[in-house]
Every structure is written in C-alpha cells, then in structure tokens.
C-alpha cells in the first residue's frame, strides 16, 4: 500500500489511515494466533476489509525464547485490502526472539510494543542479542513502547485464584486489549468468545477478560507517551449485505457441502490422513454428520484416497485431502480412479518441499505434480483457489466436474489460503445452480464403459442396482464391453478417449477473464492460486501510475480456458509470478509457445506487493 503523503487526523487527534498492518509475535506457546484471530474478528465487525497471515513454526511448542520458535499473526485492515501487507506499521513483540525475527519487517517510523520483563539476559542470549536492544539505539528509527506487559497482566488477574503460569498466559489478551484500544475496536466479541471457550473454567475466562480490559484501559489512561499513538482506519466501502470472516478451509468445507447438495448426492465420504497444513479440513468436516458427511481418518494417505474411491464406486461423493507429500503417496490410487473413471475430489494444501520441507510454510510447487505427476498417460482436471472465499466456489466446481465427467479432480490450495481469513459477503448456499447426478439403472444396452456422447463420461452404475452387476478394475478395459482387454488398438482408443474427455472440459468452463486492466497492453501478469492478492494490488498500483499492465488469474489450470492463449498474445510481455521456481510459466510456454517469463519466490512467505511492483517497473524501465 502507498503510504499517505499528508498525515490526516481525526477530531481526537488520531492519525487517519487507509490501512494498517500489525503483527503479533511471540513464543509458540504465547497465544499469538488466538490474539491475532480475535483482533481480526473485532476488526471485521468494525467494518474493515482485511487479510490475515498466520505464520507459525512446525514445532508445537518450540523451546521458549528461541528464534525458530517465533509464532506470528499478521493482519492488514482498512478500506480496500488484498494482502496481509508488505511492511508492518505496528509490531507487538512478546520477547527478544520475536523482536529479532520481525523487526526487519517494521517500517521506519513504525511502532513496536515490547514486553520489557521478557528481555532478560537469558532470553536476550537465546535470541542472539549481545546487548539489550531496549537500551541501545538500534531501535531509534522506530517508536518503541516499553511496557512491562507480564507485570501488568499479573496485576490485572490478581486475586482470581490463578497459578502463576496460568496468570502469565493471559498476557496475550492484555496485548490484544491494547491493540483494540489503539484502533478503537470493540471487545465484545472477544469477551463472548472467552466465556464460551472457558465455559468449564469461569476463573480463566474472567482472568483473560480482566487482562483484556486492563490492556485496553492502559491505552485509554494516557500512560502512553506523546499523543497520536492510536490510528483511525478508514472503514471499507463494502457491498451491502451480511458478512462474516472466513478462512480458506472453512470456505472449502462449505463449498463441498454445497456441491454435494447441487449434485443431489446422499453422502460425502471424506477420507483423510492428518498432515500439515491440510488437517483442518478434516476437523471442520467432522462436524457435518447432520449434512450427510462421514469423515474417515484412515491409517495412511493411500487408505485415505482408496476409501474415497470405494465410496464413489458405491455411489457417494468421495473426497480426499492432503499436502504434497501425501498426494505423492496417493498417486497410484489416483491412476486407478482415472482408469476406472470414477468421480473423486482430491484437495492439495500445498506446502514448501521437497520431502517434509517446511510444513507450515506455503508454496505453489505442486502444479507439475497435479498436472503431470502420474505414471502413464493419466490426465485429470486441475483447478485452484485464489483467495480464502474463492475456495467456496472452487470446491463446488470441483464437485461439478468430478460428477459430470466421471473423473478425479485436483483442487489446489495452499497453507497460506487454508489458514488466512478475510471478510466474506455470505452467499446464498441454496441458490447454487444444481447439477444433478443420474445413476444408471437401465440394464438395456448397459456395460460399465458405455459413454455419454457429449461429455464422454461413462455411466455411474452403483452396486445395489439390479441387473447392472459388472466387474471393473485397474486392468485396461474394452471400449465396447468394459471387459479386460489387452487389445493394442483398444488401449490406443481408451487412452485417447480418457484424454479427450478431460480436454472437452474446456468447453464447459468460463472463458478466461482479465481481473483488472485492459485486454491488451505492455505487460500481463499471469497468476494462479494464493498470489491473487499481491498481484492484484500491484497491478492496481501500477495502473494508477499509468502503466499498461493487466492481471490475469487462472482458476482452470488443466485444461486451460479456450481463449487463454489468444488473450495472452494481446500483450507485449507476459510475467508469471509464482511461489515456485517456474511451473505455470513452463506450462504456458509449452502449451502456447509464448515467451512468458517467470517471477519466482520460494521463501515460504507470500509475495510482497512491492516485490511485484518493482519487478514490473524494472522490466518496463520505469
């Protein structure tokens, strides 16, 4: 975001800003994710647009005070927000390690709040500080708020019967209270949430509320140095309607439910094996038994997909979900589902790799795996979610394509989208256009690979149907009878028909649109998946500067929309920002023979808007 050049102030003297970026950072046991997500909730209810970025270590409770154990929650909020923000305006650092790791992201002149009592010699040494940064001048470029948050928290909860450890754990709520004061946000939702979460332990709820209020009161009671520490952030100009915050995981789960309903199927069978960052989808779906969902925590990734295949074979909607390493394990079974032509939705929450890689960090490096990563000629449609809320529509689309074309569909999301939240104008889930499935019941002229001449989809004949008893399997099947066939010409024909079926999906998806900008110009930025926010924001900034740039964001990655190649040819240059070393760019180059160029980042962190703006400027010699 461009910073305002002239500081505007409201009647109370608070600086007015279009948007603000803040980050809570502390130990992985400090409750930073809770503080951050509650802040997001209150912010959303205050009418702001927002984007969040939970960034946490793979270790559940990393050693206290270590730099690798820092858990952070970043949020940008304001009138029109596409990303979690490039630079921090405010940093809450609960210990020296959090300060050390995150201070480079704080803008010059930004505010840092530190808990002074955590700056002990031991913690300083663990964080690698030779001198206490609170005493030297290293923090001089920033406004530093030194507060003994631990002591103030302990004071606030005194007399409530908590142990020392329990009392100390309330300090995230104290920090949250201060931040909520800083932006004039309400605390009601958080207090209600605390009551519900600690319903069985009212003293804990009371203590956390007391800490929250104390933090808020601290801001209020003029103990703050100078004036204007708070900001007034412009509210978003949102379309009227009912809103909520939504994460990519929630939107995916609800989209699957809406897809199940639109397909008119009785049951969704979700087979899954726990893996970071995909497991939350299993957790969410486990609550939907009353909606016809059965979740199965399988013994491994292979059993997870196989159970989903078995469920689809028996007439349910089979869905499985994992991250890249788990998808690799599912690959043989995916080939079976392609060969026997059964509907299946496979969701990949991508993470940094290879192998275990960085489980909690996002990457987009499984596109090749999704499009090409199987033995033999085994095509399947691949689609990707662009934002947390976009996951809802993409999940419905995955169900539609899987059931209509009798094929596995790969749905790509990533660790960032799964946990990131944004405000969402709640759609009418019951207004989703139905795409009812018809099971084959007529024995006349039936064999299991009899096809719909238009879609080339085979008949879905479900066990339990009299007169349709048949045998299918992984061995090649005769085009004309479905029986085992080793006939050379038949294999050629079946391979071609499987490919043609997937290719024809291109006729059944929307043409590629331009997200922002003209349909011709000096440069187009082509993205897919979770890079939507930074690319979009970058292009808007460049357009405001008079650049002839456009943003094209591809949801349908295989097959591509029919017009994609022609659309891209309308631009002098094609730049493809990706969180991998160049996968979509390679597919675009090989498919359309276009001189597309990659802009690649694999740090496990999302693109900054400025990184994309700079890349475009340098190429357009601005």
């Amino acid at each position, binding site marked *: 975001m461009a910073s305002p050049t002239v500081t505007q102030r409201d009647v109370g003297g608070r600086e007015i800003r279009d948007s603000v970026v803040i980050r809570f950072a502390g130990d992985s046991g400090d409750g930073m994710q809770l503080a951050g997500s509650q802040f997001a909730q209150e912010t959303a209810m205050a009418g702001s647009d927002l984007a969040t970025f939970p960034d946490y270590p793979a270790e559940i409770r990393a050693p206290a005070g270590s730099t690798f154990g820092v858990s952070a929650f970043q949020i940008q909020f304001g009138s029109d927000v596409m990303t979690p923000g490039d630079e921090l305006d405010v940093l809450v650092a609960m210990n020296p390690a959090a300060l050390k790791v995150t201070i480079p992201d704080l803008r010059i002149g930004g505010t840092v709040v530190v808990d002074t009592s955590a700056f002990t010699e031991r913690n300083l040494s663990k964080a690698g500080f030779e001198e206490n940064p609170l005493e030297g001048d290293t923090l001089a470029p920033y406004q530093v708020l030194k507060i003994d948050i631990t002591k103030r928290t302990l004071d606030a909860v005194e007399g409530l019967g908590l142990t020392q450890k329990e009392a100390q754990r309330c300090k995230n709520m104290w920090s949250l209270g201060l931040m909520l004061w800083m932006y004039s946000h309400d605390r009601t939702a958080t207090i209600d949430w605390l009551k519900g979460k600690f319903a069985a332990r009212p003293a804990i709820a009371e203590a956390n509320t007391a800490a929250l209020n104390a933090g808020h009161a601290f801001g209020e009671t003029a103990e703050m140095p100078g004036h204007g520490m708070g900001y007034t952030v412009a509210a978003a100009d949102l379309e009227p309607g009912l809103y909520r915050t939504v994460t990519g995981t929630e939107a995916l789960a609800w989209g699957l439910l809406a897809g199940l309903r639109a397909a008119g199927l009785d049951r969704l069978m979700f087979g899954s094996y726990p893996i970071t960052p995909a497991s939350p989808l299993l957790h969410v779906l486990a609550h939907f038994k009353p909606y016809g969902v059965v979740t199965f925590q399988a013994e491994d990734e292979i*059993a997870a997909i196989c159970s989903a295949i078995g469920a689809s074979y028996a007439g349910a909607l089979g869905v499985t979900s994992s991250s890249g390493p788990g998808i690799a394990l599912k690959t043989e079974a995916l080939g079976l589902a392609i060969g026997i032509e059964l509907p299946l939705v496979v969701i990949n929450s991508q993470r940094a790799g290879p192998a275990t890689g960085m489980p909690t960090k996002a990457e987009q490096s499984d596109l090749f795996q999704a499009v090409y990563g199987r033995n033999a000629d085994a095509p399947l449609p691949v689609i990707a979610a662009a934002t947390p809320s976009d996951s809802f529509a993409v999940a419905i689309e995955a169900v539609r394509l899987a059931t209509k074309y009798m094929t596995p569909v790969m749905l790509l999301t990533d660790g960032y989208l799964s946990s990131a939240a944004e405000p969402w104008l709640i759609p009418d889930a019951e207004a989703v256009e139905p795409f009812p499935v018809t099971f084959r019941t007529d024995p006349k002229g039936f064999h299991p690979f009899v096809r719909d001449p238009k879609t080339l989809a085979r008949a879905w004949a479900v066990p339990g149907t009299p007169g349709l008893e048949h045998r299918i399997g992984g061995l090649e099947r005769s085009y004309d009878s479905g029986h085992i066939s080793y006939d050379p010409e038949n294999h050629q024909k079946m391979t071609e028909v499987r490919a043609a079926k997937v290719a024809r999906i291109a006729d059944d998806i929307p043409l590629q649109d331009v997200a922002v900008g003209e349909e011709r110009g000096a440069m187009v930025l082509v993205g897919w998946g979770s890079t939507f926010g930074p690319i979009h924001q970058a292009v808007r900034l460049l357009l405001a500067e008079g650049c002839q740039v456009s943003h094209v964001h591809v949801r349908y990655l295989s097959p591509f929309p029919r017009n994609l190649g022609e659309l891209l040819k309308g631009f002098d240059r094609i730049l493809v920002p990706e969180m991998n070393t160049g996968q979509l760019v390679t597919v675009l180059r090989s498919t359309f023979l276009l001189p597309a160029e990659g802009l690649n980042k694999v740090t496990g962190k999302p693109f900054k808007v400025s990184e994309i703006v700079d890349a475009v400027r340098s190429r357009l010699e601005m």
Partner: protein
Amino acid sequence: MTTAVASDRLSPKDYASDQEVRWCPGCGDYAILKAMQKTFADLALAPEKTVFISGIGCAARFPYYMATYGFHTIHGRGPAIATGVKLANPDLDVWVITGDGDGLSIGGNHMLHVLRRNVDLQIILFNNEIYGLTKGQYSPTSRRGTRSPSTPEGSIDNPVSPGAFALGAGARFVARSIDTLQPHLIGVLKRAHAHRGASFVEIFQNCLVFNDGTFSAFTDRKVAGDMQLHLEHGKPLVFGKERNRGIRLNRQELRVEVVTIAENGVTEGDILVHDETNRILAAVLMELEPPEFPVALGVVYCDPAPTYENEALVGVAEGGAAGVGLNAVLRTGRTWAVEA
C-alpha cells in the same frame, strides 16, 4: 445385510460370470471359486447387493468370475477400498479377496487396520506361501529356507502367521480351511458370511506351478486324519484317524501337548474343549504346527463386537440431508451487516 432372493433352486452356475477363468490348470483357486459359488447358491445371496473387491495377484482375479459387482483394485488396497464402500452403503455385502503377498506384505498395514476397526467384511486370504503372478518369488508367509528366483540360497525371513496376525490385530472372527476341503470350506465361508464385523478366513491354497505341495504335511489324504484338527465349538479338541488323540493343557509349563486317550491314564475329560469366544485359546490353536501338532481348521475365534460402519454412521443424515438448510451453516459464529 443381504436379503435372499426368492428362489430355492439356485445353482453355483447362477453365480458364475460370463468371463473365461484364467488360472493355471490345477490351481487351488478353482476349488475356492467353486466353493464360493456353492456358498452363494446355498444361501441364495442377491448378486446385485454383493461386491467382491480384490487387490493384485492370482487370487485378485477372483471378482471377474463372480456374477456380482466386482472391483479389481490395486496392490494391497482392497481393505481400504472396501471400507469406503461400506461407509457409503453399509447395506452392501462386501467380500475382500486377497493373498499372502497382497494382504500381508504390500497391504499389511491396511489389513491390520481393517481388522481392528471391525468393518463388516468377509476377508478371504488365499495363502499359497509364494508370489504366483510375478513368477515364484518367496512371500511373507514362505517358510525360512524357501528357494525362489529372488532367494536362490533360501529365504532368511521369518514367516508371518496370518491367523496369529489377525488375532493380534484385534479380529473378532478368524477361521481357516483348505482349498480342496470342499464341504469344510463351504461351511467356513457360510460362518464368515453370517458373522457381522470383519471375518478373516485363511485358506491354504496350493500353487501347482511355483510351490506345489507346500501344505502336503497336513493336506495329503494319507496324513489328513492325523494332521488336521477340525474345530467345533463346545467339542473336545480330538483328532486322528482313530479319533483317539487330543490336545491337553500342561498347566505346569503353560503349553499344550498331544495326548492319546486311554493311554497313560488319559481320559476324554483331560482334553481341552473348543470355545470360539476364548481369544487365548484361539492364539494357542494358531501356534499348532506340524510335525508335532495337527493344524487347527474351522472357526478358531468368533466373538462379535459392534461394527465400524454402524458406529461411524451414527448421526450421518440420509439423503444428503436435503431438508437441512446450508445457509445456517454459513451463518454460524459472528456475522455483521453492512448497510447500503
């Protein structure tokens, strides 16, 4: 649950598919197929409600030959696919056909978990102690010293006992039979079908080409009487051509021994009585091996427990919960209105 069709004159042929059977001439699989088709005819099972699921191997061709629904899947994964089928439609009667390689090597993990979960399936493991389809390598049930293309000097792995494995995994039904022992095998298949939950059946199956005669120490007619212990619930563990030998518990040494009735003061009252519900006895019976002991055949263990799919599906709405509004789901938690 399978409902019987309204016909009392079904023959095994009514359950044979139109596919040409392609096992080696003389393969034990033919006898098992025959026994299965006879079992279906005797019980008048509904073909449209039956699904045979297999992995990979010689045995895995089995579903193609039954005139029911059939799914020939991938190596070792039959139990996982069958679990999905039961979670989608628990009313289907699902049989898993597997072998010693498919079920205990590449698919050993799935076998462990499908048994402990107690999914209502009949799991029929054809044990021929060899890899047939890949041309004769030793398998996880091959005895030490098995010479094969991959073990020219004899295998050095210790074999797994399928029955002991199943018991250890928590199976609630474990039975054994022999391919050629037709009436006995049909009886075991009927018991497996009647059992609700995972029924594990090991069938000793002769591979004529790669491992002929591997079970002859107890399957040959000449020795069958002395080397087979046919189990019946509530009956003493008596065997032998003269029906005068039995299994006695040696309490001092906590082991069992073979004794002869009417010799050395042994009476029939000294012989252990088979109790299908006694898991410890089942474990002991699984340990009996020639030459010292006869091989225990029949229902070794049967002690029903709640099935996985019945419990997993409690509360799962039928009909896709068509009457339940989705909009309510999207409105759970905090919402706020933006005014025009």
